[in-house]
Structures are given as C-alpha cells and as structure tokens.
C-alpha cells in the first residue's frame, strides 16, 4: 500500500466513525430519555424509571405545577389521584436516601422553572438529621446537572441510553401503556414479598442506649435542616406545602429501636411540626406512618423498609381526604401510638425468643 492509500483508508475510517457517532448523538438528542435538552415530543410520554438520571431534567423541561418530594419510600406513591383531586400536574422529585438538602435543591430547581401550587413533601424520619451538604454531584451523572457541553458525551454516546433507554421509553410511549403517575414505581422492578422483606432485615443483637434529637450534634443538624425547609416555605407563601410522615415497616423501626435512634426520630418529627406549622401554607399529615396494619403487614413490603403501591395509595388518600392531620397539639399522641406498636412488637419478639414467625399472623392485615 502507498502512503496515499493509507491516508485514504485512515480518512475513510474517520469519516465512517464520525457519521456513526453523529447519528448516535442525534438519536439521543431527539429522544432525550433523561429530559436533558427538551420536554416531550415525538409522542413520548415522559417515561421515568431512573430517578437519579431523570429528576433533574424532568424538573427543567417537563410540565408540572406541583412537586412530590421525598426519599425512596415515596417513590411508589401514585400521583394520579393527587392530580385529579387538586387539579394539578405533579412531578416526582425523589432520590434514594434523599438528604433534606437534596430535596431542597430539587425544589429550588422547580421554582426556577415553574410556578408551583402544591408541594407534597414526604418527610421520612432520618431525612432531617443528615448533615447539610452540597447538592448531589455524583461524578457519574454530573453531566446531567452542570452546564458543561463537553461532558455531555457521556450522555450522547452511551450504550445504555441508545440501546436500552431509548427503545424502552419509545416502546412504552408509543404503545400508550405508560402511566406517568407511576414514575419510579418499584413494581417495575419486583413484586412485594414478605420472605424477601424478612431476608433483608439484619438487626443488631445488642440494644444501644436511647439517643435524643434534642441535644448535641443531632439537634444542630435537625435545626439546620428545618431552617432550610422553613426558608423555602417562607419564601413561597403562594404554594401549599403538604408534609407527611412516610411509612416504613416495623422492621425498619426495629433497627432503630436497637441502634437507639427511634426517640431521636420522634423528637425530629415533633420539632418539624412545631416549627413549620406556624406557617399558613403548611399542613402536616400523619398519613399511615403509625397505622398498625401498614407497619406490621410485611406482605406489602419489598424489603425491611419500602412499602408497595397499596400502602402508598393509602398515604396518597390521606392527603386527599385531609385526614389524620398533625398539629403541635397532637403530635406527641401520634408518635406515642407508633412507640406503643414498636414496644409491643419488641416485647413479642422477646416472648417468641427472637423467632420472627409471629409476623405471619399479621399477613393480610393491611388488606382488611
């Protein structure tokens, strides 16, 4: 081969590879499954299954006037009934193990892009005890959060996006078989199962001394987190904030009974109600967080913590029906109810010599 022939081969290769890469980038731009560049077009339904990749873009480009904030325990909440009842369009802004500051970051983002009428905020007990840190900046998804066009190559030339997300999103959209209210629903991944829920529970043997949320570092973190929420509430009187305590199974509470944190969490819930209820645009809901059946019936759980659609739907209807409202006057009563169920459970566990089988007695309780 001559130098000229080598040159032709080399340039031919560059051209071919360039065309392929351009077509790939074009496909990603057009379908944009993570809503990084634009809202919905081409008949797409806004399929949402990967919260860490999609929430940011969804808040920027989709249409909504209400936001459902929370950690993984809120992911299964169907927003359709909320939309129907309140006449709004709710966008889920959820993150696994969400810190309060992550949710505040999402809410800020929502306010930058849309007028928000309702905020449904799932306040799980540990959320308000995390250290206030920077907004989420995991390296692997930084390209979706910053404005640097160069690192978009991670999105534009990405086998997962091209060969998985786009066909999946387009398939569900065009078949018309996707309900946006079920965004990030666990059912897409697996079904609830009591055995599996129990299999994920590995509690500590020893029981540690009780910790409080009203003293030391815990108090500082609690107050800082509540400051953050309060700032948002105060800055947006036009928005109705509906806070609700999320539900987790009794196994989750068992973990914190043993690590001594359960009282800290009750303190946190009490303090949140005290501080935020003074605002006219705030209402607190107990939902089903201390509902005996929802706590004890593990057939509705995927693991030691996350409840299924049915339990989540009860949570949604508590908001719709304005029931089980919490005020500074009755918060102690509400947490007492949960504490009683927890103590009853722990006593039974001792009586059963650590044998979890008695939990099968509660199976089906939540359906009754």
């Amino acid at each position, binding site marked *: 081969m001559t*130098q000229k022939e080598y*040159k032709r081969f*080399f340039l031919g290769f560059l051209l071919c590879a360039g065309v392929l890469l351009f077509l790939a980038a074009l496909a990603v731009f057009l379908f944009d499954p993570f809503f990084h560049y634009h809202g919905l077009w081409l008949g797409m339904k806004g399929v949402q299954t990967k919260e860490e990749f999609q929430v940011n873009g969804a808040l920027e480009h989709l249409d909504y006037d209400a936001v459902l904030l929370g950690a993984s325990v809120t992911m299964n909440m169907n927003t359709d009934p909320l939309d129907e009842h309140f006449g709004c369009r709710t966008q889920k802004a959820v993150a696994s193990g969400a810190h309060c500051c992550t949710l505040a970051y999402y809410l800020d983002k929502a306010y930058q892009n849309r007028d928000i009428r309702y905020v449904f905020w799932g306040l799980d007990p540990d959320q308000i005890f995390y250290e206030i840190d920077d907004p989420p900046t995991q390296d692997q998804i930084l390209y979706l959060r910053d404005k640097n066009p160069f690192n978009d*190559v991670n999105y534009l*030339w990405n*086998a997962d996006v*091209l060969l998985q997300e786009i066909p999946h999103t387009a398939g569900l959209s065009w078949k018309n078989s996707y309900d946006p209210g079920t965004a990030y629903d666990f059912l897409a991944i697996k079904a609830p199962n009591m055995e599996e829920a129990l299999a994920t529970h590995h509690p500590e043997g020893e029981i540690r001394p009780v910790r409080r949320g009203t003293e030391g570092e815990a108090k500082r973190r609690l107050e800082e987190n509540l400051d953050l929420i309060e700032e948002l509430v105060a800055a947006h009187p036009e928005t109705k904030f509906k806070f609700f305590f999320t539900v987790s199974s009794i196994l989750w509470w068992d973990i914190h009974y043993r690590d001594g944190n359960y009282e800290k969490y009750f303190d946190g819930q009490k303090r949140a109600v005290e501080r935020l209820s003074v605002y006219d645009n705030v209402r607190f809901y107990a939902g089903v967080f201390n509902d005996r059946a929802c706590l004890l019936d593990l057939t509705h759980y995927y693991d030691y913590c996350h409840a299924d659609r049915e339990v989540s739907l009860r949570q949604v209807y508590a908001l719709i029906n304005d029931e089980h409202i919490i005020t500074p006057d009755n918060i102690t009563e509400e947490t007492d109810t949960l504490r009683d169920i927890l103590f009853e459970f722990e006593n039974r566990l001792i009586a059963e010599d650590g044998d979890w089988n008695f939990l099968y007695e509660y199976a089906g309780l939540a359906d009754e």
Partner: protein
Amino acid sequence: MYFNSYIFIFLFVPLTVAGYFALDHFGKKRIGQAWLVLMSLCFYSYGTPWLFFLITASMAGNYIFSILMKHFRHPRLFGTLGVVFDLGLLFYFKYFDFFISNVNAFFNAGWELKHIILPMGISFYTFQQISYIVDRARGKAEHYALLDYMIFVTFFPQLVAGPIVRHNELVPQFRDAAKKSLNWENLTKGSVLFVLGLSKKILLADMLSLIADQGYGDIAALDSPGALLTMLAYTFQIYFDFSAYSDMALGLGLMMNISLPHNFDQPYRSRSIREFWRRWHITLGQFLAEYVYIPLGGNRKGKPRRALNTLILFFLSGLWHGAAWNFVLWGLCHGIVIAFEDLFEAPLKKLEASKPGRFLRWLGAFVIINFSWVLFRVSSLKQVPQFFGRLFSFSENGSVSVLAQAADNAFLFIPVQLAKKLLGEHYFYVYFVFVLLLLLVSAVLAGRKEAWAYTEKGVFKKKMILPLAVLFFLSVISLSKVVVFLYSNF
C-alpha cells in the same frame, strides 16, 4: 487518564499527535519532544496532581545518579544507590502497608497502617529506570540528555501499564530525525491497532468481567459448573484486558512512528508454563531474566541452583504484581511448575513428538494457567480453598444461570425483550446463548494471531473500514461504564 476514556480518545490523542507533528513541520524537533513529555506528564497526573511530583522526583533521583556516574568513578556504588532509591520508592508506595500488616500478624506489633494510595504505573516506570541505572553502572548505557531521559520514562503509551521498555529501545528512535514526520502508514496502522485494542478491552474483557466479578464476588454460591465458568471468564478477561492495553500502547506509539516491544504472543497456546512466560507479559519476563535471573547465576550453576533461581524469579514476579500473599503464591506456583518442567525436560519433550502428546501438554498447561489465575483473582488466601472446594464439589445449584444473567448489558436489552415475547418465562436462555458466544469468541480470538501481527502486515482493504468504524463506535458508546484496567493497579 485512562486509554478508555472520552477525553483521552477525543482530545488528548488528537492534540498530542497533531502537536508533535506540527512542531516537526515547523522545524522544532526538540520542542516536539518536549511537547510529548509535557503531554505525557499531563496524562499521568490528570485528576491526581500529586502524581506529577512523584514521577518528577523519581526521574530526578535517577537522573542525578546517572550524572554522578558520569562525573565520578564508582559506578557500582552509584548504581547500587540508584537501585536502592528506586526500590525504596516502590517499597514505600506499594509494599509498606503489606509489610506492616505482616509484621503485625507475625509479631503482634500493632503498628498503624498508612493506607498509602498506590500510584498508577509506579511498578512499570520504576523497573524501566532500574534497567537504565543498572545498565549505566555496567557501562552499557550512555548518560542521556535530560529531555531524552524524560521521554524514555514518561512516554505516555507505555507509562501506566507497559510494555516495559528499555532505554536503548526507545531513545534512539526519538533521536532518529526520519521518525519525526507524519507517516500515513504508521498513523493508519497505529490507529487500527488502537481500535482493535480498545474494542478487545471494552467489548470482550469488560463483558467477561461481569461474569468473573459476579462469581468471585459470591464464591459460596457457586456450584461446579459455575466455578468453572467463573474461572474461564477470568482467564480470558485478564488476557484480553492486558493484551488490549498493550495493543493500544503499541498503536499509540506507532501513530508517532515509535515501535514499542510486543508484550503478548498467543500465551494460551503455550504447551508449558515456561513457554507461557515467553508469550505472556514478555517485557516483564525479559526484564526479570536479565536483571534478576542471570545475575543470580541463571541456569549455569547446576539443576538445584537453577530451580532455586527460578523460584526466586517467580517469587519476585508475584510480588511485583501485587502486595498480597495470593500474588506471591501465584508467582511461586508458576515457579514450581517451571522447576518441575526443567527437571523432567527429557520425558516432556518426548511427549511433544506426537499430536496427542502435544495436545496433552497444551491441556496440562492451560489447566495450570487457569488454576493459577484463581490465586491471582481471589481477594484473600482464604478464598482459595473455598473456590477450589466449589469447583470440585461436583454439585449443581443453578449458579450458571446467575452468572449468565450477570452478563446482562445494554446490547442484550432488545434481544431479551424479544425473547420475553417469543419464549415467555424461558427468555433467560438469551443470557446463556450470549455467554456461550462470548466464551466461544474469546477462545477463538485467544488462539489466533495477536492484533499487532495483523497490523504489522499492513494490508488494509476498503471493506475493512466499516467494520472497524463499527467496532470503534460500539467501544465508544460503551465507555461510560467500563471498568478500569486491571494492570494499572500493579
């Protein structure tokens, strides 16, 4: 910076190569070389700036010893001091915590670990510099100009994971004015070799790693077929991973008209472990032979001494690969087998006379290689009996199914969806077929010529352009979640 990253492929390489040839075009040959050194240092310290200071200090130390050897007598003294300096750096960054943890284990000392982060490629560039210092002390190497020395150590294609290049293989090439101009033949051959290496790493090694990682991540759950699959997957993974890196390094060098030494030559076709080491990580074998084995007496002092020298050589080889006992055991295992091969050289040679005999020798070597990779891959020595226990349990619990599904990846999404429609609950057969194909392709490719052998011929037809572009395209779109190179950790 890794070879398998967007920034390297789309920014670093074009900029470096274009800059190098542009400076030559304008008659700035030495500046072109300085440009390469600068870019190589950027490559090495990208994202971890302190590495710049480490490699600079390492180079400065060695260069000073070379100056001392030039201006004063006592080359042996300065040579020894230079080697001690190099080994000291290597010991501190690579072996200090290993040493402390062993002292603690044997003497209950309770010394604190330093948790030192292993700098990328330190084993490679330290060995290269040792070879230079020893050659200087032996009077076999001249004192190079600083820029020549710096390009010898830092030249980015071979900096992080080899091949281990000797100064007399590299420096003369950079001094050769004829090699400084753009050469379309070399640029094309280098690019093709780079693309073949990249796709070997991403489309084969990384896919195989999904199976191997799953298997080694939960050894207790494996049955016999599962352990076998895990073992084979890792055997192919490590070969494609490391040889891919070498292919890419060779390709990158060639783009700039620099020939780097071959590091692999169909190692899994070996019919003995000795032959394996002539085909696997060739440059390490050559380094250890010249600077350890031969000075120890090599095979000149009788059979027992030869066996001992072999064991020392492979003990060091194991330790070079990692600061943990499983690597040492892996090295010793190879050393012991080679010592036996030497001991029974005559009957083993007889066996080679017939075709079945040759096959038996190949099979024996391949089995030993596979078993020894288990020692290399486990995360602790405790896992060795556990793994072999599962392999020879002759049990079946369906772990192959778990391993096959671990190989799930974006390329399988559409086939799996189609299979769900056509096969219903039996859709997971797609994963079995995929794994089978993956192993088949791996076995076929491992038995064929190395990529460098194909590109050396340099006969590229037009019809190869599209498949090559597709390989490149598939590799690039798989970059965002590929695993790091195994050998850069050594």
